[in-house]
């Protein structure tokens, strides 16, 4: 069995989640919009799932829209809110370290005539709330800032930014996809109007997510069709997915003390990895060393191509990532690292290790040594090659 250190890409579905969802794929297969008993049974499961999610968010059930996942939630939040408010203004404020689901959505809106301000970040990937305040104009309708950055793990001061948005009367969206497995999700404390979630990042299945939409927030639906999800998202509901999502979210958040203990355990493992790798020359931590996701250890490594290192680690039995789950070999350096002021060459040496619930101390220690070995081999060979080339 490989050592899996890529929980930011996806997590294994919790067996309790699988157990909870299976009946809605088999005997309780009904369409929640049907009038008959099978339909009512499915409707009840969907309603209960929505209540559970709402409870964890400190929201009302009608404020929860189930989606196909985090990307759809981001698209619906930003496009939906920007278009619905487009008569008032067409200006959006976001940051340079957003997930592509937010970044590319904003770029499409730019083509459609919206103006977008990308607030910069510091070397640690932090958004300054005052920079957001300064970027808001009379025409601004939506602000979107990621909660926990998916590549480098930096946590943003969401509540502070939320307060500013409230003060200025603009809608505030946060992509909480990566943060939701460890951070509190109380939408009032966070001061958000829109919040995106994804099932498979928190031990649920792929293909289900949710968007919190604060009551009174107008959204232009991005999928037209039936009247599902209070006319905000057409399409027959993914009942099994919604049930699974609610259970997965409960397993993380119902017991806050347990969640915090789990975070502490993962942070300890993370710090062990960070300490081990930082003993090596030419290795630097990326992201905020203090305010970061408890499971994220991200590095910039000189003298190697991140994708080569990930492949070498895979063959040595450790599953990792360069920063996002992109297997296409695209050469473009991470926009997140570039926004943090990392040069394009250096950005190629990115490695992200993300810990999970089942990660053990033994795995982390073994992985650390394997990384040290692979790195030495890759760098040694590269240095040897350069020596040959110059000879």
């Amino acid at each position, binding site marked *: 069995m490989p050592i899996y250190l890529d929980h930011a890409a996806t997590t294994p579905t919790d067996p309790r989640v699988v157990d909870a969802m299976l009946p809605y794929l088999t005997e309780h297969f009904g369409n929640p919009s049907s009038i008959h008993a099978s339909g009512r049974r499915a409707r009840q499961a969907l309603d209960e799932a929505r209540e559970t999610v709402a409870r964890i968010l400190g929201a009302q059930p009608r404020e929860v829209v189930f989606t196909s996942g985090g990307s759809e939630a981001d698209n619906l939040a930003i496009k939906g809110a920007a278009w619905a408010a487009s008569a008032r203004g067409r200006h959006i404020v976001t940051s340079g370290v957003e997930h592509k689901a937010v970044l590319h959505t904003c770029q499409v809106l730019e083509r459609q005539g919206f103006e977008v301000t990308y607030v910069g970040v510091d070397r640690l990937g932090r958004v300054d709330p005052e920079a957001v305040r300064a970027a808001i104009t009379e025409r601004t309708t939506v602000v979107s800032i990621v909660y926990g950055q998916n590549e480098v793990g930096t946590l943003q001061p969401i509540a502070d930014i939320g307060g500013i948005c409230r003060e200025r009367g603009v809608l505030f969206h946060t992509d909480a996809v990566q943060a939701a497995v460890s951070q509190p999700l109380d939408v009032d404390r966070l001061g958000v109007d829109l919040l995106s979630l994804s099932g498979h990042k928190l031990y649920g299945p792929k293909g289900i997510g949710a968007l919190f939409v604060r009551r009174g927030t107008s959204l232009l639906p991005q999928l037209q069709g039936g009247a599902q999800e209070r006319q905000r998202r057409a399409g027959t509901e993914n009942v099994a997915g919604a049930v699974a999502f609610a259970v997965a979210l409960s397993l993380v958040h119902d017991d806050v003390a347990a969640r915090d203990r789990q975070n502490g355990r993962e942070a300890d493992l993370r710090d062990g990895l960070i300490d081990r790798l930082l003993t090596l020359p030419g290795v630097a931590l990326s992201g905020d060393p203090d305010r970061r996701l408890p499971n994220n250890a991200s590095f910039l490594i000189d003298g190697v191509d991140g994708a080569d290192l990930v492949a070498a680690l895979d063959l040595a039995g450790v599953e990792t990532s360069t920063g996002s789950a992109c*297997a296409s070999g695209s050469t473009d350096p991470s926009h997140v690292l570039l926004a943090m002021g990392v040069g394009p060459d250096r950005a190629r040496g990115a490695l992200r290790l993300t810990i999970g619930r089942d990660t053990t101390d033994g795995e982390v220690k073994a992985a650390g040594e394997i990384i040290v070995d692979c790195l030495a081999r890759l760098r040694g060979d590269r240095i040897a090659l350069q020596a040959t080339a110059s000879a």
Partner: protein
Amino acid sequence: MARIVAAMSGGVDSSVAAALLAADADNEVIGVWMRTHPDRGEGFEHKRSCCSPDAADDARRVAQIVGIPFFILNVERQFGERVIDAFADEYLAGATPNPCQACNQYIKFDELLNRGLAAYQAQQVATGHYARVEIRDGRWRLLRAADAAKDQTYFLWVLGQEQLAATRFPLGALTKPRVRAIAADLGLPTAEKPESQEICFVPAGDYRALLAERRAYAGAPGPIVDARGEWLGTHSGYAHYTVGQRHGLGVARGTPLYVREVRPETNEVVVGARDDVAAGGFVAVDPRFVAGEPPGARFEATVRIRHRGAETPCEVTMLGSGRLAVETAAPVWAPAPGQAAVFYRGDECLGGARISRGGARPSASAA
């Protein structure tokens, strides 16, 4: 147990090469597709999004069926410099580029071999080339493929001892129909894929756009002249022409005209009749010999000056300082500067050199 990196292009040849190696229980095969240049996504929004081109999809699917791990190795920077830019620079120097050979030399048997072997801890690299490798008299030899029609040694002569020692050509003894049959038997999705003909980074064969994009060469009109310097017409820019080219000159004469020479210094394109383009010999530079050294200071061989071109008996004289002279037993047609002259003896590819500018000797028949 040998760990082998199989370069997979997404074509039928490299698919079968990987499959044949993987079928041998003594091998641990790792499939690698090299991303050589950016690819446009299918969505309209982002021209360089995180997507994988069709060829990579095919290669991955084959790797899944064959049951081997599959990675994508990014070589865009190296390919851009050593193959695409070099391709443009050759045209700008009035020469004819040889991108497939450059890709073998700098990408497959350098970048993939060295970087791939380090990352994947492999001992060998395999490709779907039609060629064979064998040890004779204590040296690695590059031998013609069993299928003469498919032989690709013309693009592989740049390989030396170190590289051949770490190289496998699993298709060397097979014919193309046999390779397709194997692919079909294994149910590989690439079994019926047509042969790729064009240069992979030049869409629709139009390299003029590439010269403009990579080297800001827009082309400036200049004279088309005959060997005596007499004006015959106007061309669109010297770099748009290569030696031996017949079409696109826009000059009407009783007999067909061919490009004899391209002169970047004066932006002239020199043309002549078909016989004028033939040569009885030429000078070539940057020689490389597979065995490490030429068979002698002067040796007999046969020479080929284009892929699948005819082979002509010749005598080669090493001139020193990276130059050699080739005298052919019969006229060779249009030795184009920049193209490789590759030498053979029997089934062995000895090596070759790059044909240089201005070294062609008139053929006996034309003189």
